């Protein structure tokens, strides 16, 4: 059961990305409807109009008004009068303007509560950049098959907290939220809108392409691991999260598949999750003995030593003390 969660996650990510592409098209369609402009449209625009009409006609009779219900991106969105915002946007705005705008703070409340309970789930389950970064990781594996060096550099995971701090200082200094130009979930939604509805990419695309190259050539998932200010904030918020992945040492056979698959370079086989784990469940999906499962607790299990189905444990039996790895 649990091993299918990863597929559900990939489906969720794909759905969110598809929505980010669809929303600008719907927005254009709405303005065509509002203007009663079908006869004035170019053939390509008419095809867009027809496609969007086909998509939405079973939901609404008045698309120009009703489609206003869902707007926005993963940075900030409004869904049927419910406004949801990224906590990083709230923190950045407070730094930029030195004041708290309470309606905006409220819009980040649900994400903050979920992060406190579930940890960095946003990074694994929602962020539209994650889909592209994971495709990028797969690409680097294919490139390795072709003989190119794989990205193996490691840096200090704490570097991203520095990025968060510097970003806040820059927001204070410039009087404008700095994260919006370096934070992929903010960039992607906005750039997709620019590209589709306004006809052209902005500077954010260049920055995002550079992060992809960094991941491809220097460090696997390097941006998320070492640089992302949002990831840093979520890690801090989710430090004492309730939902954790834990290893059942009785079922583990020391195969290391989980250590290899972890995009964040964590070591599930050595019980090394910590605040960096985003509950993406990729390790659960590859575990051949179903030794990884969710656990409700405020802390990770201490190191449990070799798995009981593994060679080390079988050879030394119960004499093998936990933690000796």
């Amino acid at each position, binding site marked *: 059961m649990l091993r299918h969660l990863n597929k559900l996650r990939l489906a969720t990510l794909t759905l969110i990305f598809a929505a980010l592409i669809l929303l600008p098209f719907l927005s*254009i369609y709405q*303005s065509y409807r509002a203007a009663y402009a079908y006869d004035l449209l170019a053939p390509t625009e008419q095809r867009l109009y027809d496609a969007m009409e086909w998509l939405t006609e079973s939901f609404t009779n008045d698309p120009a008004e009703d489609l206003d219900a869902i707007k926005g991106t993963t940075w900030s969105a409004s869904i049927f009068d419910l406004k949801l915002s990224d906590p990083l*946007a709230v923190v950045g705005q407070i730094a*930029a303007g030195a004041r708290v705008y309470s*309606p*905006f703070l409220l819009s980040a409340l649900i994400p903050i509560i979920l992060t406190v309970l579930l940890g960095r789930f946003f990074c694994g389950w929602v962020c539209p950049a994650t889909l592209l970064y994971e495709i990028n990781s797969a690409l680097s594996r294919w490139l390795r098959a072709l003989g190119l060096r794989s990205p193996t550099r490691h840096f200090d995971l704490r570097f991203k907290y520095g990025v968060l701090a510097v970003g806040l200082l820059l927001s204070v200094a410039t009087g404008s939220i700095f994260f919006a130009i370096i934070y992929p979930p903010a960039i992607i939604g906005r750039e997709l809108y620019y590209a589709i509805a*306004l006809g052209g990419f*902005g500077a954010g695309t260049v920055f995002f392409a550079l992060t992809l190259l960094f991941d491809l050539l220097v460090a696997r998932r390097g941006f998320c691991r070492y640089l992302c200010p949002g990831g840093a904030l979520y890690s801090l918020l989710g430090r004492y999260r309730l939902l954790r992945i834990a290893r059942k040492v009785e079922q583990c056979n020391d195969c290391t598949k989980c250590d290899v698959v972890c995009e964040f370079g964590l070591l599930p086989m050595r019980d090394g999750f910590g605040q960096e784990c985003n509950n993406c469940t990729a390790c659960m999906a590859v575990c051949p003995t179903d030794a990884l499962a969710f656990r409700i607790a405020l802390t990770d299990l201490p190191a449990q030593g070799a798995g009981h189905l593994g060679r080390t444990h079988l050879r030394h039996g119960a004499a093998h003390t936990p933690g000796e790895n």
Partner: protein
Amino acid sequence: MQRRAFLGDLIQGAVAAATLGAVVPDVVAAPGVRRYLRPPGALAEEDFTAQCIHCGQCAEICPNRCIRYFGLENGLASVDTPYIIPREQACILCMKCGEVCPSGAIQPVPREMEAILDKVHMGTARVDKRICLSWQGKTCGVCYRACPLPDIAIRVGRLEQPHVLDGCVGCGICERSCIQIPQAIRIIPDRRGTAMS
């Protein structure tokens, strides 16, 4: 010899281009030179750039697609913030952007006459009588007929000569509709903006 002359021309051209390149962007792209409006309900300029989180929802919801976004041309604090060039596409005062804006940079203003007159300060129209057809003796009155707040924001006198009144909120429909090229009526932006509630 010919080659040397060609090289000389090349160097001269390069120097000229470099000089132009160094001078022109300063003139064209200096902040504050561009005449743009912020969406209706926007805060005063400095508060606006501090509050705006660059999410793009205001343009997404704008039925008239008049909202665009700055690149680097208006300074670093303005990157990805919304603006309106009324001559290209003007605001129809539907007030949806303030409703959708999560950050408070565009304050929600109800779509009612009193609220709009009270809170929206995008700018004020100004008529250039040297260009205006009506002021030149050819009856026009297009700006008056386009105005969403006729006789509150603008009234017409003899020969449909437009007079801008205190009620003008600066939506820019008049500038958009002006049949003269260049336009005889322009919105002068008002950077005081809307007060935060």
